[in-house]
């Protein structure tokens, strides 16, 4: 494998990782506040849908490719927040089981996005092609051999994802808001005693997860598939959940895990370059990343500790 393809491999890794980075970061915010979010898959689907529709109409309205794509990202974030409110209202206000109401989001996503696409596009199962984002390269840096190709030529969403991971980490661990959000997930009773509004913070946590997972779905529509159809997301949300747990509910950890999953997806495209790969059935190459995840979890990571009050409903009368 030449250096050139190594740069390509890293580049493809980042393309695949971007959506997972957004969604798993979103998951971290929801779960740090104590609300389990198994609806990440559904939120991504809604986001991918909103990006497809928003991007499409923005292009129709005459906006250029990149500005139209940003409209898509924005619609995905807004739509993600709105849908995440279903989860929030059910699980926080109406005390529904958080696991179930997350799954409900996944269910609604599969059906309603396709229904709406068919209504909007006269029976077609997809939004039709949109231009989406094109890659940007950072001047001068992109000329560095190998590294330039790997890190300094990417979709803007990838840079946004990395930026948000840093902001997310800073917010969670270095600001009063982050401290409150985490306290609500660890010990809501104690948080309430010192005057922190438990339910309000949980709503915010869930809404942040909706926005981020929505944007995660949007990046798939706007960079990889360039349209929305029923299989645009296909399981990335579940991978994001795994990345969140793998990354021990820490933005940086989730980022690392997401890159790991992105790498494992990218490697499929490149493993054929090795001569020895010809003798291995491709299914084994396909299952390798998932196998590797389990091995890594068992060998190195071991017990991962979830926020203490995760999945528990907060009832002030039982304090």
């Amino acid at each position, binding site marked *: 494998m030449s250096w050139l393809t190594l740069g390509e491999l890293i580049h493809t890794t980042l393309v695949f990782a971007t959506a997972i980075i957004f969604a798993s970061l979103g998951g971290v915010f929801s779960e740090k506040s104590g609300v389990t979010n198994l609806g990440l898959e559904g939120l991504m689907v809604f986001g991918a849908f909103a990006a497809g529709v928003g991007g499409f109409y923005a292009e129709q309205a005459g906006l250029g490719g990149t500005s139209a794509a940003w409209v898509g990202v924005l619609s995905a974030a807004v739509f993600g927040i709105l849908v995440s409110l*279903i989860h929030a*209202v*059910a699980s926080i*206000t*109406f*005390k*529904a*089981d958080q*696991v*179930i*109401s997350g*799954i*409900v989001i*996944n*269910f*609604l996503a*599969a*059906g*309603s996005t*396709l*229904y709406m696409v*068919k*209504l909007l596009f006269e029976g077609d199962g997809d939004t039709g092609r949109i231009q989406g984002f094109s890659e940007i390269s950072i001047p001068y840096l992109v000329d560095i051999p190998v590294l330039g190709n790997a890190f300094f030529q990417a979709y803007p969403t990838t840079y946004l994802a990395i930026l948000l991971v840093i902001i997310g980490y800073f917010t969670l661990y270095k600001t009063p808001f982050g401290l409150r959000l985490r306290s609500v997930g660890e010990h809501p009773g104690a948080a309430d005693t010192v005057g922190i509004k438990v339910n309000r913070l949980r709503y915010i946590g869930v809404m942040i997860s909706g926005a981020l997972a929505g944007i995660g779905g949007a990046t798939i529509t706007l960079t990889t598939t360039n349209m929305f159809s029923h*299989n645009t997301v*296909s*399981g990335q949300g*579940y*991978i994001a*959940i*795994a990345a969140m*747990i*793998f990354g021990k509910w820490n933005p940086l950890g989730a980022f690392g895990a997401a890159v790991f999953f992105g790498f494992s997806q990218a490697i499929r495209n490149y493993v054929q370059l090795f001569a020895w790969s010809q003798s291995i*059935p491709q*299914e*084994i190459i*396909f*299952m390798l990343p*998932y*196998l590797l*995840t*389990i091995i890594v*979890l*068992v060998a190195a*990571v*071991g*017990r*991962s500790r*979830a926020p203490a009050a995760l999945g528990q409903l907060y009832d002030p009368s039982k304090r």
Partner: protein
Amino acid sequence: MANLLKIFTKDSFVLALVSIILGLLLGAVVMLIGGYDPIVAYSALFSRVYGDSYNFGEAIREMTPLILTGLAFAFAARAGLFNIGGEGQFLVGMTAASIVGIKLHGLPAIIHAPLAIIAGAVFGGLWAAIAGYLKAKRGVNEVITCIMMNWIGLYLANLVINQFALMEGENRSVDIQPSASISIEWLSQMMGNARVHWGTVIAVLAAVFFYIFLWKTKQGYELRAVGFNQDASRYAGMNVNRNIVKAMFISGVFAGLAGAFEVLGVFHYQSVMAGSPGTGFDGIAVALIGMNNPFGVLLGSVLFGTLTYGSAGMSFSADVPPEIIRIVIGSIIFFIAAQGIVRWVVKPLYSKRKKEKVL
């Protein structure tokens, strides 16, 4: 009989019923917004399922794997485990049954078919038990292992079919031996060749087993105790780790059976799949509608199967996109989960009844 009556007047049953009605109503509203007539749509849906014997048989075929994957999720949930891996267990069970069904020659049907079923059940169980073992011994969260095992299961199934049983030039395996088939030929002929099979009977029996095992045996009591409170169970001298592995194994057996029946009873071959079929995930929905109760799961799969199978008729004769049914099912689960909303809806009914009693 009195017991049966008690089930139907129970609070949870009323809530589930109201949730279903609310879900159907919400679906009707969404149809109206989309410019469709909900009455035409729903009657097309139900008349497809219950209109003629062929479609009725096929609807039952559709319900069968849902019963089993629903039981799989519910069983693990009763032991406090979140088995999101029904999908992988389904595929592994399917593959094991296929291989036994294809590769063994010259056995009488009375031995061959049960052998293939048992292979599917055992491999489904073992696949799930891996997640259970890793949780018990290494503390690895079962959600993440199950998600990974779903993907590994998918590729493993394709690998095995591609390597050992591929039909030349096709993207599927060769047919299983006739002796491994569990189709009910005479009933199938009566129902216009609907693919009915013995798996349905076993699925119903599995629900009965589920009930007896969990509520009438000591082992079942232990599993439920572990599900309620691990620490208390450990203190009471139960082996929590063994119970986790056992619960996952039995859960996987249900899902593995679901896969085995799809090959042995319905298709008689196994396709190389581009993606997961989704039966394991649908089972989660069925279990939630059935509130993790075995008989609830039966009713849940009847509802789920009717709605999804019937939805095709809806698009065919009323031109309504069938995806709307996912919205209906999603909102039914939503209302069942968020009982606060449903209680608020039924409250007027309850208070009226109480007033009558006073009078």
